[in-house]
């Protein structure tokens, strides 16, 4: 045998060598064997093999589809892994309970508070409008996906222009991140902040606001409104604002709308509000996937004010309303039951109550940047008929994570 590197030689007893090797390799092999012993179907492999057999067309396109299929297979194998299902809760409990660390999406605050990572990154990161940051975001991402458009200005200005052609003003409302309003819940060093100190923000937000307003776009930043609340403006274990936060912002927003003196055709309608309690588990607590035996973040109870008409029927989105609210999950929370926090008590409903008129709502969770506008465009040109105002709500974190694509609303109807 040739003179081999030292790694080829090991002083190990034969039995130890066999047992150790077997333990390692059989242990690794056991995971997929246990995973796939029982089911007859191919599980996550089925879509992957289907994609393989369906390949055709230009090589670049085939390459992209194959990459996407491989990524999907890898994700599916991890998500459906029995080892992950059993190991993750316990490991996460250790990390969150003892280590003070969350996971890739959720950071652990103080006294039972949880924070969403994108919001944290927005707040602590570099200016989102800096050329270098925008360029890095454009070049990041998987090679088989279309590059994102990180600069929000183009999309917002384009939307404003299209609405102006239809005679509809635009009001933009970026909702602050939880750590802006409650930094002391993440870091005790902020507990002694004075009321007159400016709220924590990304350095580019002020610049964005100035540029939008210079182009005639109205901007309502509810940071001050939320900061002045005596009670918590955000839920502890959820990424969204509290019902009190929603109501305060809706009241302030309604005041801003009234100041615009828009030529509403319809008269005002008096809605009523009925108190209700609702218990739910925060979305951030859910992402931690903690074990049942190690409940670190119990469900929260919220006090809602459900908006109803004179007959007591819960208020719904009104497509004929003259005010259209486009938003994301901050609009949907307390409105749609799927988010787990009740219904008829969200931003659209509270705005309707304070405005004393119906509000139309289009909201897509996690897609404040583009999803709402796409859904509006898909609804057809008629959806904007009769609208006197469009309010576009998005979470500020979208300014560092969102894909701000222009969306055409189609030709202007005469």
């Amino acid at each position, binding site marked *: 045998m040739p003179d081999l590197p030292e*790694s080829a030689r090991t002083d190990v007893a034969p039995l130890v060598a066999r047992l150790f090797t077997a333990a390692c390799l059989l242990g690794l092999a056991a995971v997929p064997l246990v995973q796939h012993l029982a089911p007859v179907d191919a599980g996550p492999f089925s879509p992957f093999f289907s994609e393989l057999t369906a390949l055709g067309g230009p090589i670049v396109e085939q390459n992209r589809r194959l990459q996407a299929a491989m990524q999907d297979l890898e994700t599916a194998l991890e998500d459906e892994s029995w*080892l992950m299902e059993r190991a993750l809760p316990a490991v996460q409990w250790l990390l969150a309970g003892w280590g003070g660390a969350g996971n890739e999406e959720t950071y652990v605050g103080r006294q039972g508070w949880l924070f969403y990572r994108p919001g944290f990154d927005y707040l602590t990161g570099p200016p989102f409008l800096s050329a270098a940051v925008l360029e890095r975001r454009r070049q990041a991402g998987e090679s088989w996906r279309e590059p994102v458009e990180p600069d929000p200005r183009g999309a917002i200005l384009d939307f404003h222009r299209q609405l102006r052609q239809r005679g509809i003003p635009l009001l933009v409302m970026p909702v602050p991140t939880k750590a802006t309003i409650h930094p002391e819940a*993440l870091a005790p060093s902020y507990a002694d902040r004075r009321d007159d*100190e*400016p709220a924590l923000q990304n350095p580019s937000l002020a610049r964005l606001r100035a540029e939008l307003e210079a182009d005639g776009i109205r901007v309502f930043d509810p940071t001050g409104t939320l900061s002045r609340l005596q009670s918590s403006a955000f839920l502890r274990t959820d990424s969204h604002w509290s019902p009190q936060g929603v109501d305060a912002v809706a009241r302030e927003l309604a005041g801003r709308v009234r100041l615009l003196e828009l030529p509403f055709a319809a008269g005002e309608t008096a809605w009523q509000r009925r108190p209700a309690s609702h218990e739910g588990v925060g979305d951030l607590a859910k992402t931690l996937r903690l074990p049942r035996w190690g409940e670190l973040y119990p469900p929260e109870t919220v006090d809602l004010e459900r908006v109803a008409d004179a007959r007591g029927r819960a208020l719904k989105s009104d497509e004929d309303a003259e005010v259209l609210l486009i938003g994301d999950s901050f609009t949907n929370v307390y409105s749609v039951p799927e988010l787990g926090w009740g219904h008829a008590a969200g931003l659209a409903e509270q705005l309707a109550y304070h405005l004393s008129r119906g509000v139309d709502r289009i909201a897509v969770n996690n897609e404040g940047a583009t999803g709402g506008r796409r859904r509006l465009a898909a609804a057809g040109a008629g959806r904007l008929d009769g609208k006197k105002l469009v309010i576009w709500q998005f979470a500020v974190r979208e300014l560092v994570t969102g894909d701000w694509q222009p969306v055409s609303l189609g030709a202007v109807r005469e």
Partner: protein
Amino acid sequence: MVFSSHLFCFYFLPLALAVYYALPMRGRNLALTVLSYVFYGWAHPAFVFLMLYSTLVDYFCGLAIARRRGQRTALAVSIVTNLSLLGFFKYFNFGADSYDALVEALGWGHLGLDLAIRVTLPLGISFYTFQSMSYTIDVYRGRTPALANPIDFACFVAMFPQLVAGPILRFNEISEQLLERRHSFEKAARGCAFFALGMAKKVLLANPCGKIADFCFDAGSAAALDAWYGATAYAFQIYFDFSGYSDMAIGLALLFGFALPKNFDSPYRSQSITEFWRRWHMSLSRWLRDYLYIPLGGNRLGTRRTYVNLAAVMLLGGLWHGAAWNFVVWGGLHGLVLALERAGGKEKVYAYWPRLLRVAWTFLIVVLSWVFFRSADLTDALRYLGHMVGQGTQPAAGLVSELIYRPYYLGTFAAAGLVVWAAPQTWDWTRRLTAPKALVSVVLLGLALLAMETQGYNPFIYFIF
């Protein structure tokens, strides 16, 4: 596909070993080659053709050189092909961006390229092109015979344990093992130990330290102490990430019967930058020495030329790591310190320093230079260095401070420091495998696999080179 992933550990590796050992000896190189192409193609299927092309060019060039037919031409074809591939895929974007920046700065923006196309960097191209080139150069120099069997050569280039992040193999380090190698439980046991320790380094130490570094480097600002903490955490991250990968590569190679050379020798225990480069990424250092420094003349052409050669090697070495000016600066800094140590004479410069101070001073230089390595660009690096001396702290920096000192991160950071300066090397620890050591390895592997399941996608830093 990365070693520290669910797909690789539980699906690819067991399947690869099963296929490999199910075949007779003569089919195993082919099996390993095919498996390696599948492994490589998982990241970007189209680029397997690129690697195949490079492999075929060098295979035929090697044959031509061995048969003494247009030896110089064949060597030139090999070098030009490999460097062209590397140059285009790795440096096209850098060149175009630098050109645009230059003409813009000179007020000639109308001459800018402003290209919409961005070239994607193929995984591991820096490694397999260097490795493949070393083959033709060594055949030309008569140090090694050419391989007649194209499968064996393809196996050498593509072997997945070391394909995408080294160690960079010299052909003569593995040539005879391609033709004949022994498979034994002794090798496999050490391979498992290397793999287990490498996984533990990567998942249990590198990744959490990397999170600390991410908090600090990705933030718009950081307090001075936090910035130092983040930079040091990055030094730990890159070391455990890369040496952990090398350990895993060596371990995997042993499972397939190959013995690879050492790639790290406790570099943070170095007492000078000169010594650091004898201990860090040893396979690259050897490659640069044998194929660049010595052909340029090494230290045989006078003092001035020696410094020029040192500077050239370190600048090009920096550029090899990344197509950006911050990598050039990183390489340049190391080159400068190497030159200063050489000029002063290492013994004179540090003669009166206690060992601890020499190690600390060397580590300080390394940490400061890593700032250029980690930062997104030169501007970012200078900004971060400013944070390290207390400049530019924003109000939100306190949020970062709160998270990075949490028990999990601080504990991992401390453990990393302990391992760096007090623990035995994987190489030494696995030289004699007792039952307790085997048990410790199994436990570490288990912990690493559990932690891996909770972490997201965690590629190796050197995958991007």
